[in-house]
């Protein structure tokens, strides 16, 4: 590591910690409008709160069973995501991986932005945790729309849930449409090269595709927010890859970890690592001319800039980390 010398200065600086938002009182934030759904308001008495919650749950149930809810063109079901899917992921986020979020203020409060993150961990849990992080920590409770591989949309059940959670296929058309609609889009340009890399290569960023995400952001004129995720690399230490089996199953890799597949389903349990998600300074893209998106040299330069920034932050977070698990 070339920049190991800078460590002491970093260590001296008091670490800035974003206070964890108190989940029990969602309406405490003055910026936030009360959610559209009949989510329980802050309660006076605990018993009252439960009653309200039940009433809200029943109203929610009534809308679901009669089909009286809305989805957007991408199949994103906001109500289901907020009330069910997010709540399912939250224990994993809060209790299991104990995700710490830094630099949330780098995400704009409104308008489109492209969050570019590193990808790791054999299973794309990092994407899901990133989605929870953005929603729970951002003052405007923004929803992250992730771009996912086509494999996600080939698998039954998975594709259905992914669409409902607001994910869509990683292609320029979808990304640009979302960005132009003012959505927050998350992309992991390393793709399968990143998520399926051996444990020995952890925290070494892979090639960033062909830099398509940069031209998409440029066309939409939205800033790029680099994001570094530490902790996801160690959840499934991939020590081997059964390539023949992977080819038979039609998946890009078949992970072999110290526990999987030897312990069966138990081996598929991720290790409870401690995560840190850091959002970096946004890189503006609105200063370029209209034809800049076609300029390959500029694309490569910007891609490298984003990549360098993520890699640098990863190293910095790694030297700050006390242990993998705490």
């Amino acid at each position, binding site marked *: 590591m070339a920049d190991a010398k800078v460590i002491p200065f970093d260590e001296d600086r008091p670490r800035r910690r974003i206070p964890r938002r108190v989940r029990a009182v969602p309406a405490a934030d003055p910026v936030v409008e009360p959610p559209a759904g*009949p989510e329980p308001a802050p309660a006076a008495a605990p018993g009252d709160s439960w009653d*309200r919650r039940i*009433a809200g749950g029943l109203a929610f149930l*009534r809308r679901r069973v*009669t089909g009286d809810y809305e989805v957007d063109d991408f199949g994103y079901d906001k109500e289901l995501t907020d009330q069910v899917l997010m709540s399912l992921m939250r224990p994993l986020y809060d209790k299991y991986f104990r995700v710490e979020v830094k630099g949330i203020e780098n995400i704009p409060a409104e308008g489109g932005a492209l969050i570019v993150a590193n990808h790791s961990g054999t299973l794309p849990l990092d994407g899901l945790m990133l989605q929870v992080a953005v929603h729970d920590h951002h003052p405007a409770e923004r929803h992250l729309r992730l771009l996912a591989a*086509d494999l996600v*949309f080939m698998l039954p059940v998975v594709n259905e849930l992914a669409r409902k959670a607001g994910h869509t296929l990683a292609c320029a*058309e979808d990304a640009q449409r979302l960005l132009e609609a003012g959505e927050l889009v998350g992309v992991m340009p390393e793709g399968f090269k990143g998520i399926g890399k051996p444990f020995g290569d952890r925290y070494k960023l892979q090639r960033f595709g062909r830099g398509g995400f940069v031209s998409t952001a440029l066309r939409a004129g939205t800033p790029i927010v680099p994001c570094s995720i530490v902790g996801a690399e160690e959840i499934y230490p991939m020590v081997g890859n059964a390539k023949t089996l992977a080819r038979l199953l039609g998946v890009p890799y078949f992970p072999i970890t110290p526990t999987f597949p030897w312990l069966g389903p138990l081996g598929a349990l991720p290790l409870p690592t401690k995560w840190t998600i850091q959002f970096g300074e946004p890189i503006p893209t609105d200063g370029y001319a209209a034809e800049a998106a076609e300029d390959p040299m500029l694309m490569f330069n910007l891609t490298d800039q984003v990549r360098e920034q993520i890699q640098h932050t990863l190293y910095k977070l790694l030297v700050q980390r006390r242990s993998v698990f705490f």
Partner: protein
Amino acid sequence: MQPGDFFEGGAELVGKVVLVTGAARQLGGRFVRRIQRDPDVERVIAVDAVTPPHRLGSAEFVRTDIRQSAIARVLAEHAVDTVVHLAVTGGSAGTGGAHSTVKETNVIGTMQLLGACQKSPTVRRLVVKSSTSVYGGTSRDPAVFTETTEPKSLPAGGFAKDAAEVEGYVRGFARRRPDVAVCVLRFANILGPYADSALAEYFSIPVMPTVLGYDPRLQFVHEDDVLEVLRLAAREPRRGTLNSGTFNIAGDGVLLLSQCSRRLGRPTLPLLLPALNWVGSALRAVGATDFSPEQIRLLTHGRVVETTQMREVLGFEPLYTTAETFADFARSRGSGLLPPERVGRAVDRVAAMLDADGLDGLKDDAYAAEGAKR
């Protein structure tokens, strides 16, 4: 739409002669009746291979098969200047024919019709009904199709392939006759009280078989909107709009298949894809519904199109959104096994039972919130 709009795009001194193919179908018949009321239309010639079961008003019905060259004579005889080609259909129970006949009418019929148009000196406008199924639909396709999206894989057969081939011939015709304004309208699934499409039949099955693990996004366009946009395409463009080219036509918004089944009150039966193929052929064999591989594809991946061109270039605003179209359709079909009202009441009863345990007033709050949302 104001009545004055008709005259805006250049008042024509001579009335138009409109030829409509596929007039024996429900939609064709309604369009024939509708367009003859337009003040600038002098005569309407309705063409089909079978005698329509419905009235055609003052239109002149010519029974001819568009697969035969006789169609050229019809064009010349009546000095037709506008051709509205609606005989591109999925061929559901209404036609009774096997798919080979439908395919021949779609493809060979279009070729004959285009050949006749090319020869005709009077034809100035051609409107072709196509379908958004030309985009196919796979897991590797973008979520929303625009008019310029190239399909990832060409449809292997059925109506989608027919429509894609028809569009190919129409493009060739547009190149050879640049003086003719050609408008191709790609309709999303057409629904409404009179719908007789394969999808409408599917929505009438008491227990709808679905693909396990997939919840497709569907988009609908109302029959009334279809008639309106066809009328818009068949006449001179209004100022500031252009009605030649290819346009996606769909109502606003998206419904998931699960939402459709709940709003209809028809339970679903999720099946694995191979099992669904088997059920599909079984249903086809007994003639219950046309459950084609193409329809299974729609029910797997769904299909959503962008309609910006329709609004901004064609200048058409549909009256019905996707959800409103579906509601109108659902009303006409009567309720299924689990009507949403009854299911909703069941939930209310549970709420009332809890209410008795001391949940005073809270339910009303929730209802007020719900009411406000509506």
